[in-house]
């Protein structure tokens, strides 16, 4: 009985051509729409660019979190698929580029960047020490730096292990992951406060960072699940992946659907109950005019559908259901970004047109391209990982 897997068997294989093509086509269409949108309606394009940035941040940073979580928790069942998350985490490398269009629209997006407005507003001048362009830029740079740094440190060790099978690298990565976690918590919290909560600079909520975190994990988990089921059905993971693995993904997604709902509900009920005008206006914006229907739809899309879709035990291991639900959850997370961002731009009316349709295409395109590039250079499985064999053999 050997403790390692047959490396040759799990070596790199190219992804289906369709994935590559789809990535480039979607990115091309998305980029054209992005440019056109900025030409026609800069404000609206900026808001869309922000949604795009936050969505990709979710996938990228969330995937890095999942990688670190596996190391820290000592999980083995997810080891065969850790590379998927590592590939997706490389999105953090291009986040600074995705942030450029948002930066171009900083004045369209953020009220507090207008110094005259801030000077005339007592509350805004009170927080000018935090909300000003200089400090904002420093913070954003710091977030990107943290994410990119830890991406390189962790994935490089993982890659080195493919050839050396050195167990010390696992140990190193556990330590790195422990160091990453507190920084991750701080950066994802203040990142979401800076990019999104400050869209309404008068509004505040202590749970906001946790709310964004819950969506982040859910989305990156959904991306991982979809990729895993899709590639496994095409035979990329060999013949050892069984419904026990599927079930674990389904159960984890189901858990985080509930966690997201718990956080969202906590925020809503506490603000509704206390009924303080300085807090309620944020929810009122999402309940006026068309936004009421959007909010109702949002609850159904982000909680009710995935909840019932993943509730039963058989549905957690049904590959078809898992694929559908993970795509659905990714859509719901983009919807979440829309729900968080857009009411600031348009009160009473929920804007929806080719612009809002085009940006998500770009998101999908970017994810596919990044995944494709990474997988063409690396093994799809961490073949030197000491936990891989146990991960493949994993049964309840």
């Amino acid at each position, binding site marked *: 009985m050997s403790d390692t897997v047959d490396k040759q068997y799990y070596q790199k294989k190219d992804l289906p051509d369709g994935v590559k093509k789809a990535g480039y086509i979607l990115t091309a269409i998305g980029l054209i729409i992005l440019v056109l949108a900025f030409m026609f309606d800069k404000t609206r394009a900026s808001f869309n660019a922000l949604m795009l940035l936050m969505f990709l941040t979710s996938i990228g940073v969330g995937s890095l979190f999942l990688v670190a979580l596996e190391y820290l928790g000592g999980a083995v069942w997810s080891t065969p698929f850790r590379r998927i998350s590592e590939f997706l985490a490389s999105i953090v490398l291009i986040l600074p580029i995705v942030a450029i269009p948002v930066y171009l629209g900083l004045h369209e997006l953020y009220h507090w960047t207008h110094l005259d407005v801030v000077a005339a507003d007592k*509350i805004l001048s*009170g927080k000018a020490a935090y909300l000003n362009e200089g400090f904002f830029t420093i913070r954003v740079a710091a977030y990107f730096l943290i994410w990119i740094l830890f991406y390189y440190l962790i994935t490089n060790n993982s890659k080195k292990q493919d050839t050396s099978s050195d167990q010390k690298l696992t*140990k190193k990565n556990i330590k790195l992951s422990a160091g990453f976690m*507190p920084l991750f918590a701080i950066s994802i919290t203040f990142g979401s406060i800076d990019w999104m909560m400050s869209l309404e600079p008068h509004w505040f909520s*202590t749970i906001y960072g946790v709310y964004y975190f819950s969506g982040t994990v859910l989305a990156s988990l959904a991306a991982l699940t979809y990729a895993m089921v899709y590639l496994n059905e095409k035979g990329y993971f060999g013949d050892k992946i069984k419904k026990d693995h599927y079930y674990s993904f389904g159960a984890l997604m189901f858990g985080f659907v509930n966690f997201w709902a718990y956080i969202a509900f906590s925020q809503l009920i506490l603000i509704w109950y206390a*009924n303080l005008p*300085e807090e309620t206006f944020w929810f009122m914006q999402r309940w006026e005019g068309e936004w009421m229907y959007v909010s109702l739809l949002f609850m159904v899309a982000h909680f009710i559908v995935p909840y019932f879709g993943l509730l039963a035990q058989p549905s957690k291991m049904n590959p078809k259901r898992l694929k559908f639900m993970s795509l659905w959850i990714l859509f719901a997370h983009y919807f979440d970004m829309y729900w968080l961002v857009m009411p600031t731009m348009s009160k009473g009316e929920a804007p929806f047109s080719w612009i809002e349709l085009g940006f998500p295409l770009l998101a999908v395109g970017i994810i596919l391209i990044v995944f494709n590039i990474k997988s063409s250079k690396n093994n799809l499985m961490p073949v030197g990982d000491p936990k891989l064999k*146990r991960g493949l053999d994993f049964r309840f």
Partner: protein
Amino acid sequence: MSSVDYTKEYSVVEGSPRLSEIEDIIIRPLNVKPDKKFYMAISVTLTMLLIGVISLGVSFYYGTGMWGNNNPVGWGFPIVNFVFWVGIGHAGTLISAILFLFRQKWRNGIARFAEGMTIFAVMTAGIFPLIHVGRPWLAGYLFPYPNQHSLWVNFTSPLLWDVFAVSTYFTVSFIFWYVGLIPDFATMRDKTTNALKKVIYSVFSLGWRHSNRHWQNYEMVYLILAGFATPLVLSVHTIVSFDFAVSVLPGWHTTIFPPYFVAGAVFSGFAMVQNVLIFIRKIFDMEHIITLDTLEKMNKIMMLTGMLVGYAYAMEFFIAWYGGVEAEQFAFVNRAFGPYAWAYWIMVSCNVLSPQLFWFKKVRRTIPAMFAIAVFINVGMWFERFVITVTSLSRDFLPSSWGYYSPTLVDFGILIGSFGMFFTLLLLFTKTLPVVSIAEVKAVVDGAQPTHGDH
């Protein structure tokens, strides 16, 4: 342990004991007469309990004026103690239900005991809202039933939700605990030679015969109950946090309260379980069942939840400043630098600073160090509830209605009594029921599980 081999799964029970050895070790405390140490321990806890009973008697005879509660601080020790004890209970459910759903095998050695602590902690906690209402004999009206007095409850109050949440939680925890005990009762029934014990164990084992069909049903029930207990445990401390957070009081009303309270509850609960287990494993020779690895994992969870709590403290402060609401800013400055600054800094140093020592593996695996840190954590978590409850109330919106809360001797007496009650019940538990689940530990011993893959 410096070189862990990641290709292997380590057994959570050390030394591959035989199954009969496990049975013997776990059942032994129930078959020997209590020794001198036991009597010494229980006389201490009974004395504490007696102090509590006397203090309660004084409170009932003279009224709640014997307490430090005043105007504006209407919620003094009783609410602080209530939240503290409910929190202690949370670790038990986290270990027995949530870690079960996560299939963490190391939980098997400690789940029974932790779940027992849940039940006793919730019982202890239940005393406080009852006495805090002033006339506990009228508490039956908290349940909404049609009565001649046309008394009806206020369904919009989180205090009422507490009644439902805590009583449901207690019920489900108790059933969960009992279901887990059934196979063990059967084992004890089969092993005992005492006729009276045989009758008692037979009744409680509900005709269990260790048959395949029994186990199948048992596994399903256990899984479903774990699934029920998980949202319940979260809901309980969430609703406890609502008691504070739905108000408009600065320092109480903040949206992070629900997850923050849950994290804090798990934090203090783990500290308490760890403290008690350190004694249990030593006294009952269970160091190979409740291993150092298990304790280290618990310490890691304390470190995590400690940082979550620290995150919440920091977020509250940041948003109090960022939000720009004057009353909120005052409340937080007052917390850290006002008349209760001493309590605040005890809380921060115990809850946020002391668990940072767990970053060092050496500390995580040294019994005296981890014991001391866990004691600090429990002190800190008690003070956290004190800080939240008292500082916000003592500074009312009008400076003319400010006041300082000082607990009285009776308050301390009741607090001591609550510890007395909790530990008395625990001591009795160790002599009446198996403190470790025999069946669950057998299931994780080396060679108990069928293995897969190539051989």
